[in-house]
Each structure stands twice: as C-alpha cells, then as structure tokens.
C-alpha cells in the first residue's frame, strides 16, 4: 500500500487551516485588559460543523418520519409487506464498518501519541471500512431488486413509496460518507490528515449506522 512509504504520518503537524482565529467559545481577554479571563481554546470548525450537519440530517429524517406516520394514518390504502431479509445482513455490515473505523481512529490516535508509528495499520482498517460501506450500498440495491421482483415499486403503495424514499435518502448519505472516507485515506497517504477531519468523518459514519438502526426499526414497525 502506498501509505507504507510515508512514515511516520504527519498528523497535525500542518497548521489547522479551516480555522483562523482562536477566540472560540470561551475567550481569553488580553493580559492588562480588566476583562473576564477565560480559556484560550477554540474547537476546530470541523468538529462543530459536523454536529450542524448531523442536526440537519436528523431534521430531514424527522420530517420523513412524521410524513410516514401522518400518511399511514390518513387513509386505509396502506398495505404492509415484510422487509427483504438482506436488510438485516446490511445492518450487520454497516455496524461492523463502524467498528473497523473506530479501530482505525484509535490506532491513529495512538500513533499521534507516538506509541505507534506505522500508518499502514490504520490505512488497512480504513480500506476495510470503505469496503464494508460499499457492500452495504450494494446490499441495499439488492434489497430494492428483491422488492421489485415481488412487484413492489415506488408507486405501488404508500408503504413501498416510503421504503424506497427512506432507504434511498439514507443510501445517498452513506455514499457521502464513503466520499469522506476516500478523502481521509487520500490525506493519510499524503501524510496530511488532520485529526479533526478524521474525527468529523467518523462521527458522521457512526451517525449513519445509528440512523440506519433507527430506520430499520421504523420500517419494521410501520411497514
């Protein structure tokens, strides 16, 4: 793997660009000023930003959920169907990918601390995560083909409509996460990976897993 030639990975050696000031939530008044003295620390924007993103995604799926509940209650044309069993396998894959990503993050943290120096390990785990993520999306696609084989299309019934809408929207967000992973791997190979970037991406990725758990429970209950 390309990463082995760069070692040790230069994590956080490059200044945290995306981040101009250092005022932050709590501010240090300049010495001599007779003003409130506080911490001189500012969280890097990426770690705040990711929570903003996750909040937006949450709101979006909250809207879809309420739509589903209202729509189901609004009339009697709702036909339930059993979820394709492959979804449960997909769930497992996605959760597994969260674990592998966490391993990668730990190892990188360790190598920053200096206890480990080789980036090959983390990189491998990241590739594995990427692979599992791709498997998940492929699995979702299989699930859709299975439903279509049963004659359940987007417009067949509100239940199938919501199934496709929710799973597709989630899959799109997962693809976004995969893009993020590729970006991280790329940076790691260039030894220019910032800790915050990795933290942000992994938060996002874990959230995708949690979101999917929520979705599958919702679908299993409502469809």
């Amino acid at each position, binding site marked *: 793997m390309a990463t082995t030639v760069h070692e040790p990975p230069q994590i*956080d050696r490059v*200044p*945290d*660009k*995306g*981040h*101009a*000031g*250092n*005022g*932050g*939530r*709590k*501010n*240090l*008044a*300049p010495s*001599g*000023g*007779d*003003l*409130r003295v*506080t911490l*001189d*620390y*500012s*969280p*890097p*924007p*990426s770690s*705040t*930003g990711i929570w*903003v*993103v996750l*909040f*937006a*995604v949450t*709101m*979006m799926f*909250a*809207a*879809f959920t*309420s*739509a589903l509940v*209202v*729509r189901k209650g*609004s*009339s*009697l*044309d*709702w036909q339930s169907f059993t979820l394709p069993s492959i979804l449960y396998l997909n769930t497992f894959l996605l959760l597994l990918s969260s674990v592998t990503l966490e391993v990668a993050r730990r190892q990188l943290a360790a190598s920053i601390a200096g206890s480990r120096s080789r980036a090959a390990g983390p990189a491998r785990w990241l590739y594995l995560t990427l692979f599992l993520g791709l498997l998940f999306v492929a699995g979702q696609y299989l699930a859709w083909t299975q439903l279509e084989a049963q004659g359940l299309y*987007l*417009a067949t019934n*509100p239940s199938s*409509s919501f199934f496709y*809408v929710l799973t597709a*929207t989630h899959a799109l967000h997962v693809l976004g996460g995969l893009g993020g992973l590729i970006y991280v791997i790329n940076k790691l190979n260039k030894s220019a990976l910032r800790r915050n970037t990795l933290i942000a991406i992994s938060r996002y990725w874990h959230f995708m897993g949690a979101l999917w758990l929520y979705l599958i429970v919702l679908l299993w209950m409502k469809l």
Partner: protein
Amino acid sequence: MHDLSVHAAPHHAPPTSFIRKHIFSLDHKVIGKQYYGLALAAAFIGMFLSWLMRIHLAWNSAAIPGLQLLSSTGAPGGVMTPEYYLQLMTMHGTIMVFFVLTTAPFAAFGNYFLPIQVGAEDMPFPHFNMMSFWVTFAAFLVLMSSFFVGDGPTLGGWTQYAPLNAIGSVGGPGQGAGVVLWAISIALFCIGQLLGALNFITTTLDLRVKGMSLMRLPLSAWGWFITSCMGLTAFAVLMPACILVILDHVAGTSFFVASGLVLNDQMLPHSGGSTLLWQHLFWFFGHPEVYIAIVPGIGVVSHILLANMRRPMLSQRTLIYSMGALAILSYMVYGHHMFVSGMNPFSSLAFSFPTLVITIPSTIVVLIWTFSLYGSKLRINSASLFALGFISMFVSGGVSGFFLAQPSIDIMLHATYFVVGHFHLVMGVAAMFGIFGGTYFWFPKVTGRMMNETLGKLHFWLSFVGAYCIFMPFHYLGMAGNVRRYSSFVDDFLQPLIPVHRFITVAALVTGAAQLIFLYNLFHSRFRGEPASDNPWQATSLEWSTATPPPFDNFGGKHPVVYHDPFQYGVQSSVGDYVMQASPEMVKTEFEEK
C-alpha cells in the same frame, strides 16, 4: 496549534485568475456581493411582476401593451388571463420570499460582514460557501425557466397547497412541469441555505478572535447567527416535502393526493394521500421563514441605530434574548396558518396561545429600540431613516398579528387582504427597509465610496409614505372581506372596493418607480461617489477597524484582539464619543453590561 493567535497562516491563498476572483470565488466578501446582486435582480423582477398584477386588478379588462410578447397564451392581446395572473402572483411570492427576503438580509450581508465582525479571515468552509451561492443561483434559474417551459409557471401560490400541487396538469396551466420546476428550485434553494447555515454557525462559534465573547458580538452578527440556526431547521424540513411532491408528479406516488378526486369528469388514479400533511410540513418551514426574513433585519437595524444614536441600547442582552425567543417560538406557532384548514379545532387553540405570546418578545424589541432613543444624540441620515422606518413598519405590521393570532377572528380575516397587508408590512416592507438601511450603512465599507445622501433621503421618503399608502388600505379591504388571490373582483360585494384597489395600484407604481432612484444611486455612487474613510460613521465594530474596502484576508494577515463591547458609544475616548472594539484604550463607561 495554539500559537496562531498573532499571525495566522492564510486561510486560502488569494486567487489570481479573473474567474476565481469574481465568479467562482471562495472569498466570503465576493460571495456576499454575488448574493446581493442576485437579490437585487430578483427584487426588481418580483416588483415588475407585482406591477403587472396591480394594473390587472385595478383595470381588469385593460390591455397592457407588449404583455402578449411575454406570453401569447397568458395575455392574448395584452389582456391578462386569470391563470396568468395567478402564475405571476406565485412567481412574485416565491421570488420575493426565497430569493430576496432570505438571500439579501441573511446570505448577502451575513456572508460579507459576519466573518469580519467576528474577526475571522473567512468562513471555515469556503468551498461550501461558494457552492451555497451557486446552488442558490441555479435554483433561481430553474424557477425562472418555468416561464418558458410548457404552459408556464405554476399557479398554486407560493404556499403550493396540496393536492393542487401534486395532481399534475389536470389541475390547470403550469400545474405539471411548472410545479416540478418550482419544487426542484426550492429543494436546490434549501441545499444552498443549509450549506450557508453550516458556515454561519461554525464561523460564529469557532472563528471569533481573542476577546470576542459571544456577548461581545454585534447585534447584526447575533441576528445572522440566530437566523442561520432557524434556517438549519426550517430548510431541512422543506426539502423532504419538495422531494415528496416531485415524486407525486414524476413517479406516480400518492403522498398528497387523496383518493377519488375527479377533474374534467376523470377520476385521478391516486389513492389516499394526505392533504394536510403538506400544510404541516410547509408551515413548519413557512412560519420560521418569516422570522428568517425579519430577524437579520432586527439585528442590522439595531447595529445601524447604535452607530447613529451615539449611545448603547438600554439593554444589549435583552435584545439578543428577544431575538432568540422569537426564533424558538416561531417553531411552536406554525399551526396558526391552518385555523380553518379542517385541522382539529382544539389544536387551533393550542397554536393560538404561543402565537399571542410572540407579541411579548416583539414588543420588548420595539420598546428597547424606542426608549433607547430617549436621551440619545440621534443622527439623521439615509441609513438611520430606514432604520427608524423599520421600527414603524415592524409595529404597524405587528399589531395586525393580534387579530390573526386568534382563531375566532381568523374566521373573518383568513385568506383576505388583511393577511396580505400584515405580512407585506412586517416581513416584506420591514425586511426591505432593513436591507436598504444596511446598504446605505455598509456601502462605504464595501465599495470605498459614500452613497448620495440626497437621493438616499428622497428614496426613503417615497418608499416610506408609499409603502403605507399601499399596505394600510390592504387591511381595510381585508376587514371588508376582500378575498386574496383573486385575479378579478366579480363578486357583488367586491365591486365597491375596486376604487381602493385603483388607489393602491397608483401608489404601488409610484413607490416601485422610487426604487429606480435607489438603483441609480447604487451604481452611480459605486463609480462616482465621493471616497469614504475607513470609519465614516465613527462606529465601533470590527468591520470599521479594517481597511476600506477590506483586504482579501479582512485584516491584512493579523487577527485583531477585542477589548470592548460593540455598543461603547457615548464615552470619552481619544477618538471621540466612542471606543472601537479592537482599540486597547481603556475608557470608563456607565454602560458596561456584566
């Protein structure tokens, strides 16, 4: 990573090519100007549409010369057809609400000045920031394209109520392709604003320079920050709704179309969709959207007033908390748009009370402004005139909320011109005055030249009196039961009201023409205006302590350090009756808010 305080590594290198400089620029200042330009163009298009509508309402059978060139079927022989009226109305509403009232006060001014006011070099995610504008621009193009596709834009009104928005072309001209384009445009717009909100929030929370505690943010920055939090929630809900509408059109799903609907004696294939679902989703966005339009105005106006009152607000914090309260309440009241929609009558009452409660923070804001004027040394200039006009309009538009907040009275006033007058005053004219005020106030900083004061004042007087002449009568019409969204007034009880409509139309034409003065002033001063100093208003906030116009990285490679609250006017300092946030000079003041 802690030793960047004095000299930060440049956020991103200054661009060299024309395209990177002026078109696909990452610089928040350029993006802010681009947003302003978009809003300006959109505003004049929207105003032109309103002219056509007003003329048609006042002289119903009159042929508007040349209109048939715009749309031969929409206006055969220049006479506007009912559907064309509704199509223009829908586009007027959509353009104004989304592409003017959301982009100008929030995205345009916010993009330009929020990073400077917190002392940052730029937004943290400049690429997202650039995308935010270009996605919004694409959204605008998509919306405009619906004028030229199929049988024109949608006629469903900017609220696009279901099921009219989902049954397709059987619903009338523009209800096929027109609605799809509308929904795509709005979905894109949501993406753009979500990207913007991401940058605004992170900028405010993470990029403040040393000494700039949250409570030391200028009120304008607070306005933008609170607005971005609202936008994050609202647009994330509107986008799914638009996606569902698009699916109802192109994929044949039935999210919003109930079963057994018959148009042209043909039964629609859809089954059991929920009509009220759209209204709930839409208004959950729609009501906060009103505050997204007005809260930046509140912030900007406070900012302008401070510099022109030469004294602090009675209480900076109360203003901040009130804006926050407005933001939170705006999510608890959306149901007051649905009092007579067949929603459970008990929930109507449940929505009525928080709506009435909104009066309290709004009143507090007005009281703080008004009574801060007491004992001030008020300067009168175009900016402060528009700020004062904002207060007046905000009050006039606000009191009519008393009526509409009550379901029982809403029975009489719902969907009448009373509502139109209400939201045009409070969200249209007031927000517009905020934009104008901000323009006259910040123009020197952006361009390095002053705007022409005489023309500015003329613009104010015509707009101020004109706006009252247009929108006060709307309330009277509404109380007489004049229904809105009528392309002509054929009902017997509406005939006697037509003279009032003629008066309004004349007023609208004059007031609209007055905006051309502003346009002229804007462009003339841009090139011919007299040069401006770095701080022409003797103001305190950070944007005035940097060069004019600000350098690419806002503060020339340095990070300012903030020593003072933004409202330190009316003090004795070496420069005069104010002390700038970034000046280390220690001054004694009785207005230190602990």
